[in-house]
């Protein structure tokens, strides 16, 4: 309980995203070429040392060598011609990849606005009308095989949106809106991280990207659009929620909780993680997070709440209704 994060491997050489795959192909090329260059140079260094061992016996140790040639051919071939060819190829590959990733192959299926916060991700699914807009946090659902437009900005400091297995980074910069697109090739849940140092809890600013079939994505989106399923009767749990002050930071659509400081909790229980994508969303972790946020994530904006034990159970019970 309270264990930080159930990490998932997130290789930059995975090919689960369209742009990520093209980046990974370039990456493989670069890594292989690099390895060859390093091995060749090390072999040359070793060979010249080995040659010297044989020649030393023949000559007086300290005498200067009177070389036959100037050695210029080495520099011309190894230092100029071969690098020029390899580097030109690298540059062409780079520009071609850059060009291929400039725009998606068809209009994006959805537009997702992501706002960076210290240290969590606010996620908006832009709809036709303000009422159709969905707000969630730290979890992004996309339809597999479809390009999705990302509109990135920040509410405080610079962050960087990064789901390694899907695509490279794009910064979230306050005062600036960056646009990019991503497309998942395979269904699955992918680990995302903040890629730019953003303060004491930069380490715990994760997100989960869920790529699912278009029909399941549509169903998820429709469910997210609905207000909270809490019923109208004010329960003891809801009272605990308000009396503990949760509503001053969190929104629950359909109730009077309208805080904008922390994540929207309307469908909290539909999400797989809490605490900026760093804890699995289990009852135990939820309890730990509510009672000891500062112990788990020192410096986070979430305060450590002093809630009476009986109230606490009601509060947890209430949160668990937010499906």
């Amino acid at each position, binding site marked *: 309980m309270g264990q930080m994060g159930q990490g998932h491997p997130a290789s930059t050489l995975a090919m689960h995203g369209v742009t990520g795959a093209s980046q990974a192909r370039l990456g493989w090329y670069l890594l292989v070429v690099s390895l060859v260059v390093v091995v060749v140079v090390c072999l040359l260094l070793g060979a010249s040392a080995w040659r010297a061992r044989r020649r030393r016996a023949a000559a007086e140790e300290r005498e200067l060598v009177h070389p036959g040639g100037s050695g210029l051919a080495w520099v011309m071939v190894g230092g100029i011609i071969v690098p020029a060819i390899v580097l030109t190829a690298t540059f062409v590959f780079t520009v071609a990849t850059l060009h291929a990733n400039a725009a998606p192959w068809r209009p994006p299926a959805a537009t997702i606005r992501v706002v960076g916060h210290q240290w969590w991700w606010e996620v908006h699914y832009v709809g036709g009308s303000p009422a159709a807009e969905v707000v969630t946090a730290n979890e992004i659902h996309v339809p597999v095989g479809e390009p999705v437009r990302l509109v990135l900005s920040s509410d405080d400091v610079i962050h960087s949106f*990064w789901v390694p297995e899907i695509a490279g980074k794009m910064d979230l910069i306050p005062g600036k809106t960056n646009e990019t697109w991503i497309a998942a090739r395979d269904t699955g849940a992918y680990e995302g991280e903040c890629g730019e140092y953003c303060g004491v809890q930069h380490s715990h600013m994760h997100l989960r990207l869920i790529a699912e079939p278009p029909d399941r994505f549509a169903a998820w989106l429709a469910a997210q659009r609905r207000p909270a399923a809490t019923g109208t009767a004010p329960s003891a749990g809801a009272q605990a929620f308000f009396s503990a002050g949760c509503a001053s930071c969190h929104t629950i659509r359909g109730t009077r909780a309208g805080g904008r400081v922390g994540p929207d909790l309307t469908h909290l229980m539909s999400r797989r993680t809490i605490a900026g994508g760093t804890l699995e969303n289990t009852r135990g972790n939820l309890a730990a997070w509510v009672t000891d946020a500062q112990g788990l994530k020192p410096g986070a904006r979430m305060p450590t709440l002093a809630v009476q034990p009986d109230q606490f159970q009601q509060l947890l019970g209430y949160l668990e209704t937010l499906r």
Partner: protein
Amino acid sequence: MAVVPATIETAPVERLRRIWETPPGLRGTLTTVDHKTIGKRYLVTAFIFLLVGGVEASIMRAQLAHSGLRLVSPGVYDQLFTLHGITMIFWYAAPILSGFSNYIWPLLMGSRDMAYPRVNALSYWTFLASGIFLYTSPFLGQAPNAGWFAYPPFTLTTYDPGLNMDFYALGLLFLTVSTTVGAINFIGTVTKMRAPGMSVNRMPIFMYGTMTTSFSVLFALPSLSVACVFLFLERRFGFPFFDPANGGQPLLWQHLFWILGHPWVYIVVLPAMGIVSEVIPVFSRRPLVAHSLVALSTVATGIIGFGVWVHHMFATGLPALSMSFFSGASVLITIPSGIAVFAWIATMWTGRPRFQTPMLFATGFIALFVIGGVSGVVTAAVPYDLQVTDTYFVVAHLHYVLIGINLFGVLTGFYYWFPKITGRMLDERLGKWNFWVAFIGFNIGFFPMHIAGVLGMPRRIYTYPAGMGWDTINLITTIGSYIFAIGILLFVVNVIVSLRRGAPAGPNPWDAGTLEWATPSPPPPYNFAVIPTVRSSYPLWEDRLPPSGETARGEERSSVFRGPVLDDKRETLGTSPLEADTMSVLRMPEDSPWPFLLTVALALVFYGAVFGVWWLAIAGAAGVLATLAGWFWPRSLEGGAVA
């Protein structure tokens, strides 16, 4: 003026010593302008900063040895990586090379001092004082904590309210004084102080390295100074430079910072490449292959280095066209490095390399240079850079650059010139242990970081969850970096032991060909009893190389042990910038208290500013004016012009 030719036997060395020697005692310590003393101080001080930065790194490596450790708090960890970064990059890597240049340059070019000896003293004192200023902050628990490139708005008071980033902004600004005046001194020295006949095509590559970086400093550093002034003004007085809420622009900082930041990479490697270009020919027993091409590629690197800064910003949302341009420049800059690498390999291949410790380090340097170079090309390729930027791949890359291409070059220089500086040899046996432990430890420690980055581990995280596949890699990295640290400690042990018990070196223990080895070890205060005249790149090898070779193709020969004495006052020869024809006898300044006093006054300004004690800052500023007036106050000088 006594411009009578003499030989080193007939020169009045006792008189020269009296003229040039700094008297012992506190006054001499604070007033000396001897480039050798200043050089040694630079070397020792910068090396201490290396050790301090190393301790910071060791704590971080302990914290990262396993997932979920809580050895230090997140806030302390942030201060550690920031302090580690700026210490190593600004207070170790460049100053240690200035140390070598200060000590070696006049000897290498056949001169008696740097062009501006008092400025040289000022450069050291401000370096030391800015370092003390920076290291005041951890004792207050408020060390810089936003990474060495300190992106706003995080660095503004809204998000980072302590004095942490004030120490950063003012500390760097203070250091800028040192670096700038140092660069001016190197440029003045290289253009005016070379021995007669040391034309640009005969200049050692080490001089090209430091000369190029000095020009880079002059053009790049104002950008950092401006950025730091802006940052301090915004933090302390609310000027709206970077905060978008007030109409500022966060990316302004990034451009200003990296316009300095990337040339700085070449500033901390080109002189080290120069050191290696001196050492490899000596131990390969032949002149450097393609001397002119290596010289040109050194200068070219410095110039192209100004066209690559945006490759640090590929993820900030730039147009594809401008990214292609900066990517192209970043790929292009590899060519001059390729030339240098193959010139070194060709020198070894066509020579007869002896692998004494300096050569071992130089060879290791080449291998690490290539690894750090190719990983640089990886980050120049925009699409894949978007993946690896700000990950441990970049951490690996920059350590292969800063340790591989700087520290291994620096250790090469120490093993090579220690006999010249101290008169004693470093121990060969310990030296070989030093090399192998450091080289193997470094690669065990830092190569796996590439893999951690490729597997998606971001930099600047104080901990990481289990199950990401990073645990084993990080444990190996921690173990390797500790082995590397033992290697560095072996060097310290070697220095301490050899200072007392090292074998006497004699003037030229390596049988090298350049001028510094024509002086006794350690060199006397006046360096050369007679000013040499130079006709080739390797004056001491001239008689033993075939006249058809690159060297000694003219009918004239170098004259190392016979030349003018110049013993009226502190005097040396001034020569022309390209051909190094004799132009004048330069009267060099005497020891002076002003550089030290000016530094004390500057320190008051910076301490006053950081703590907001404005009367202290104003008093310091008045002190600056007063010391400058004292420094420039006209004095009568009997005999000769003022240098």
